[in-house]
């Protein structure tokens, strides 16, 4: 692990070693390492004079501009902040205000979202796609054009430098920004490159939006190895086998729900992905039958499960599946395995004391991959990253146990956080939005339907609202991104409350179960 690791170093070294190798393919746009480095250096030179806070917003995804923007920000010594294209305009304005960005980089989709309102509150320096692939032009250019000096290597950074800030759902009704240091990323990359022989002939798929930190794995392991990264469009995700075969993809990391989706769309037949050699899944529980289906479709690949919250940098425990796979039998999912070399994991009770093997408790994590905390939320940071026996730990909120062989197993959540199609969602954030949209205090969201305990959708309940379900839904869309808006909103007269007078989410889930049972009986 290098403590002063600029996350663009791996890319820079590969560009020196393999200038003519392909580095990035996004639709019809193809970049060699030399092309990509030139584009990164130019954008970095234009960005650098603007850096004060160091934070650069990336309003882009699944595009060459997103990749160049991230590398150029790192190259210039900045911190990149992905901003979801799916955020309602009001949320985006809030983020601009909180983040105090020095610059904003947009791709064509991001540029389309820049209404006069948003542009007025965005940073002065906005870089949008130029005329040729890899080129950017500054919007609202003022003064005379200058030719800023191009730095031939990534900037020197301090050992505590923040590489990126990923926003994730927050229980207070507002997302929280996880600040991840470059040294934490370096520790992650060391672990992965130690286990997997990512090489210059590999061809990797970018399966994720840049607001998911799995994208950090896909970009940085690929470019560190001198390999090529192929960006998938959302529709490509439904038929991964087709994309994998078209581009001879060799390495893969995605959320497990991609497997379920592909099976549903009929595109994951036996032996259909022979080019794959490394397949990794992360971000949600990996069902054993999904791991097996993928393994049969990719007979030449190893299939492994990696686990970890954004707060501990992409992933920090690993369970191999192809060789010596371990199952968490009570849930029919692949176990989460052992911690990464620089990570410590333990199960703690409510008093943060370690419990005995086999006893369930909260999964706690420590070590070099821990994030620095939540952006401008010191109290929440202190709560979730407590000091135990003089060491800083992160409390995941995940319930789990360690078996007699030291293998960790995931049992679910201690709180109301869910994973829905790969998105991490705090149900309280939806509750807050629902209360506002329905203009009532009695409003709550539950995960439904559930398939083997895994959420497949959302249902909202409200009581005492003077608005109808359609109006509530429309108002909610202005508050929350689409994946957090319940598909169905029920108005009920009798909101169930628990002994503490709080809304009883479990009672609502039982109500939905009973309704489903009645439907099954009736049919």
């Amino acid at each position, binding site marked *: 692990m290098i403590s002063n690791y600029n996350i663009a170093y791996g890319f820079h070294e590969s560009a020196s070693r393999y200038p003519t190798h392909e580095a990035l393919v996004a639709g019809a746009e193809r970049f060699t390492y030399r092309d990509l480095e030139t584009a990164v250096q130019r954008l970095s030179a234009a960005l650098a004079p603007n850096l004060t806070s160091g934070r650069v917003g990336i309003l882009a995804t699944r595009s060459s501009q997103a990749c160049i923007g991230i590398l150029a920000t790192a190259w210039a010594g900045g911190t990149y902040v992905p901003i979801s294209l*799916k955020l309602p305009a009001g949320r985006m304005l809030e983020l601009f205000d909180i983040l105090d960005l020095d610059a904003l980089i947009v791709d064509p989709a991001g540029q389309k979202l820049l209404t006069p309102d948003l542009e007025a509150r965005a940073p002065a320096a906005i870089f949008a796609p130029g005329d040729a692939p890899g080129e950017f032009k500054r919007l609202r250019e003022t003064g005379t054009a200058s030719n800023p000096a191009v730095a031939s290597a990534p900037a020197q950074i301090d050992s505590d430098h923040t590489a990126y800030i990923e926003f994730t759902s927050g229980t207070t009704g507002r997302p929280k920004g996880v600040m991840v240091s470059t040294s934490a990323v370096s520790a992650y990359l060391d672990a992965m490159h130690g286990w997997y022989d990512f090489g210059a002939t590999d061809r990797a798929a970018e399966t994720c939006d840049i607001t998911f930190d799995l994208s950090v794995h896909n970009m940085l392991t690929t470019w560190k190895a001198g390999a090529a990264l192929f960006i998938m*469009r959302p*529709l490509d995700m*439904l038929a991964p086998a*087709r994309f994998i075969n078209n581009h001879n993809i060799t390495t893969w990391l995605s959320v497990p729900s991609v497997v379920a*989706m592909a099976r549903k*769309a009929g595109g994951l037949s036996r032996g259909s992905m022979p080019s794959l050699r490394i397949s990794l899944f992360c971000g949600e529980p990996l069902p054993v039958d999904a791991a097996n289906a993928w393994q049969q479709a990719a007979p030449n690949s190893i299939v492994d499960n990696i686990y970890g919250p954004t707060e501990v940098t992409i992933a920090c425990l690993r369970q191999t599946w192809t060789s010596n796979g371990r199952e968490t039998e009570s849930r029919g999912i692949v176990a989460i395995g052992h911690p990464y070399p620089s990570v410590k994991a333990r199960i703690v009770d409510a008093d943060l004391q370690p419990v005995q093997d086999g006893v369930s408790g909260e999964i706690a994590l420590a070590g070099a991959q821990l994030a620095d905390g939540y952006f401008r939320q010191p109290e929440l940071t202190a709560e979730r990253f407590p000091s135990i026996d003089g060491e800083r730990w992160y409390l995941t909120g995940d319930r789990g146990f360690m078996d007699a062989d030291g293998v960790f197993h995931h049992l679910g959540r201690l709180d109301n956080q869910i994973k829905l199609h790969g998105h991490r969602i705090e149900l309280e954030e939806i509750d807050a939005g629902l209360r506002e949209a329905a203009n009532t205090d009695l409003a709550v969201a539950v995960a439904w339907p559930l398939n083997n305990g895994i959420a497949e959708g959302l249902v909202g309940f409200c009581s005492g609202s003077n608005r109808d379900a359609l109006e509530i*839904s*429309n108002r909610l869309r202005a508050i929350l991104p689409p994946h957090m808006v319940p598909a169905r909103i029920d108005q009920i007269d009798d909101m169930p409350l628990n002994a503490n007078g709080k809304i009883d989410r479990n009672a609502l889930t039982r109500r939905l179960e009973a309704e489903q049972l009645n439907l099954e009986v009736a049919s």
Partner: protein
Amino acid sequence: MISPHIDTVRETIAGMLVARGQEAHFGEDESLFDSGRLDSIAAVDVLMTLESQFGIDLSDPDFDISRIDTLQEIDRLLMAHAS
């Protein structure tokens, strides 16, 4: 638009847009999925409709899933299937 079935597909997609709180109208060459107007669950539903109502074989190696992003593309797909 030439496929006799395209109006059915148009209605299905309009229904999905309305269910997601959007306007029912969309252009024939407008991106539906890559643009983020509709999510992957809607895409699966469109695929299921193509399979169950029009007999498109989703497992056919020649079937290109990325070619359903606009109504025009779906029309071409239905025409190719009919011929």
